[in-house]
């Protein structure tokens, strides 16, 4: 049974535990539940629609930075039933949602911590094959690089979404993206990059490999 499905242009993940997580539609295919992956609620979901390939295998370890209440994390959790997803979030109210989700999904490791201090995570994080970041902060690229340095395997994949307005709301998005790319290229090769329109305004997602 496939973990990720594409039907009529929409993506679905095979539900690790039954039921919808954020009121997304669920369909059943030969007795298996599949949850629709919303491109509007999830930037990775939007990325898939724009041609990004799913980097998560059924036993991948994933480090997810900026988990919020777990909308996207829930799909990543579906994709790695034999692996695990370390989900970092530093705001307490979303973290409560994430804990409730992790109680139902044993492959989610909720880390209530600041992603800017990857050395201080509350449990030991093992090397991962995917680092995904969605945090919309001024210094987000720097945070991403630190985490990849600490935890991403040499042949692993990095994915980062960049929100131009969060980095500098006075500059044109294209200029902000250029600067972010320059910083990313210090450590990474950019394999793929795309804007997230029409799902998100002035956002880009990058797929990266360590140099």
């Amino acid at each position, binding site marked *: 049974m496939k973990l990720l499905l594409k039907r009529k242009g929409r993506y679905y993940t095979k539900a690790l535990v039954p039921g919808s997580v954020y009121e997304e539609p669920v369909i059943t295919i030969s007795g298996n539940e599949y949850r629709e992956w919303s491109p509007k609620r999830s930037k990775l979901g939007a990325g898939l629609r724009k041609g990004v390939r799913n980097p998560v295998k059924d036993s991948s370890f994933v480090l997810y930075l900026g988990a919020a209440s777990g909308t996207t994390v829930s799909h990543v959790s579906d994709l790695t039933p*034999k692996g*695990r997803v370390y989900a970092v979030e530093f705001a307490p109210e979303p973290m*409560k949602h994430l*804990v409730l989700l*992790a109680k139902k999904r*044993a*492959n*989610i*490791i909720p880390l209530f911590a600041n992603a800017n201090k990857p050395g201080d995570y509350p*449990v030991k994080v093992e090397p991962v094959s995917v680092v995904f970041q969605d945090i919309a902060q001024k210094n987000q690229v720097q945070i991403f690089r630190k985490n990849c340095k600490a935890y991403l395997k040499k042949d692993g994949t990095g994915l980062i979404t960049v929100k131009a307005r969060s980095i500098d709301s006075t500059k044109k998005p294209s200029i902000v993206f250029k600067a972010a790319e320059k910083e990313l290229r210090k450590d990474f090769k950019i394999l793929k990059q795309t804007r997230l329109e029409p799902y998100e305004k002035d956002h880009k997602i990058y797929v990266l490999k360590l140099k």
Partner: protein
Amino acid sequence: MVSKKTKELNKEAIKKAIKGVKNTYSPDKMIIQAVQAFKEEEHLINVEYERLREFYWRYHPEALERVDSVEELTGMIIKGVNRPADTMGYGLSKEELSLMKSYAEGVKEHLKVIDLLEKFINAETIKLAPNTSRIATPLLTARLIALAGGFKELAFMPASTIQLLGAEKALFRHLKRGSRPPKHGVILSHSSVQSAKNKGKAARQLANKLMINLRKDYFGEDG
């Protein structure tokens, strides 16, 4: 399918996350909720007051000319007042009258709640930020805390940011489209700004004073 090791790690991480989250309590969290609730109740009561006037207009239009507060109107409806013999109001049935009264009782409950909210905000904000409350009033202080997203966040803000809290939309328009920059946010409601000829200057002075007193309050020195 999830491995045993992962399951154990999941349990351990959940335990730590619960503990960590619990430890983030601070009184400003409930003050912020109370400020939002206050704003919502205010709006709700306005809407309900208009509805209640419409109800009562059907029954006793002559009396409404003299009624100009929601407290007064709910009181009248709940107590019941006599109508003049030549009223234009309809002769309503028992059911119709009792509906109007029940609605008025509901509105009265909202008035009680908003009163409680205000008392809570005043008392808690004075405890949290006595010096700032003295200058800005507790309610304005609480609104600033809510706009900043927390007491700590507010205490670390430069005066220029405090001055513009609540004017984010205008500020964004200014940055984006070059419209005139805003001079003041919610602190405009303060009497020292209201009464000033030069509102921009008064807002700046007030924001400076607030910043100094917020830091006193946050770092716990007496005023």
